């Protein structure tokens, strides 16, 4: 493992990239971070992810792994001697996979609509977003993390989106904390962990990034 070459092709504001940064931090893996310009995609990105041409891409000893949750599972399986992300029981593993998939299907899509849409479409997205967070609150229950006593697969899938909440709230003109205080409490608890705080970006900077994107797409 000492001779492992690990590179992460990423974009600083991407919650999907943050998932991988968090996973690597949890495992204590040293890696080279390579910021990508998605307006001017580099040869390495196109070579390592020819199908989607997207980040994040993990390059491990020259071989690429694409798609954030697939990368997180890969990291869990390769560096298996520390901080397991998934439980060992198949049924509990299935539950973790289900909820991580839920985050992918709901949180990202609704969140995106909140900052890209207006009027009724935006309102519908806000409702869908809050409803989804409430379902996640139900799944969390009284546990400190979705993974139980320690951060796990669902935590890694979800908590990076917290960095986008301020942008959603400001653009969507609503308070996520007012609707889902338990979930916000959970996110803040996660941020107390050094691996999380050093892997997640500043929400205010993310907001500036989203404002820039909206201008670029001509959304007023």
């Amino acid at each position, binding site marked *: 493992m000492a001779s492992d070459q690990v590179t992460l092709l990423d974009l600083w504001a991407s919650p999907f990239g943050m998932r991988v940064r968090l996973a690597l931090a949890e495992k204590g893996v040293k890696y080279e971070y390579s910021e990508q310009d998605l307006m001017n995609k580099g040869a390495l990105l196109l070579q390592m992810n020819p*199908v989607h041409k997207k980040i994040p891409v993990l390059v491990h000893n020259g071989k690429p*792994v694409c798609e954030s949750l697939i990368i997180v599972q890969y990291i869990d399986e*390769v560096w298996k001697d520390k901080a397991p992300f998934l439980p060992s029981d198949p049924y509990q593993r299935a539950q973790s996979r*289900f909820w991580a*998939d839920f985050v992918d299907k709901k949180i990202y899509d609704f969140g995106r609509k909140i900052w890209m849409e207006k009027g009724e479409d935006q309102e519908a997205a806000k409702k869908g977003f809050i409803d989804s967070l409430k379902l996640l609150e139900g799944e969390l229950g009284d546990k400190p993390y979705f993974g139980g006593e320690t951060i796990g697969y669902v935590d890694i899938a979800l908590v990076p989106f917290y960095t986008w909440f301020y942008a959603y709230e400001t653009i969507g003109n609503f308070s996520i904390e007012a609707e889902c205080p338990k979930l916000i409490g959970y996110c803040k608890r996660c941020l107390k962990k050094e691996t999380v705080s050093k892997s997640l970006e500043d929400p205010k900077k993310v907001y500036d990034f989203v404002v820039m994107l909206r201008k670029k797409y001509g959304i007023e």
Partner: protein
Amino acid sequence: MDERKYNMAEEVKVFSTWASPFALRVIWALKLKGVEFDTVHEDLINKSPLLLQYNPIHKKVPVLVHDGKVICESLVILEYIDETWKQNPLLPEDPHQKANARFWAKFGDDKVMQSIGGGVLLKEGKEQEEGFAASMEHLKYLEDEIRGKKFFGGETIGLADIALGWLAHYLDIVEEIVGLRLIDQEKFPSLAAWKQEFANAPIIRENWPDRDKLVTKYVAMREANLGKGTPK
């Protein structure tokens, strides 16, 4: 000691519909592993209280119930099946190969199904052309991946084959309805060969849903999406 060998009371149920390509994945996986199960046939217009209780979030099939444990989402169910019944593994041991299998399964669901189902089957005119062009791009990637291999899983059927397997039956029906050929033998010879191989594989070949019924269903879906009586 594998207690399951001696536990005659192990109960495996699959909630499915006759037409669902997603539920079919679960049925294939269980049969390939020789696992006995019961099928609960659902009518999606009239979902059973049990289905709604077991899958309150998505309210969909398939649902797997194994000794009272409920698992939803076909790809999640496939991994559960592979981890629970270890004979005839669907995923390789090597983490990179495993990641690759998962990548192609996801590509099938996120991209191929969207462009063929959503774009080609349900649209017409310019939108259908765009769906067709996107589908050809996606199929080219699959062609490159399958070249030189019998199955996406190598010598034996794996997770990606099961996830993409709908192409080996449902696609013919889409092609017939819209009058367009997608997996062209000349354009995609390796993918066409895989289609044949997979469609005729033991277990797979015995479990396809009725072709004529599917044609009727998909024609109705297409017409409903285009709006009855909409001029072309």
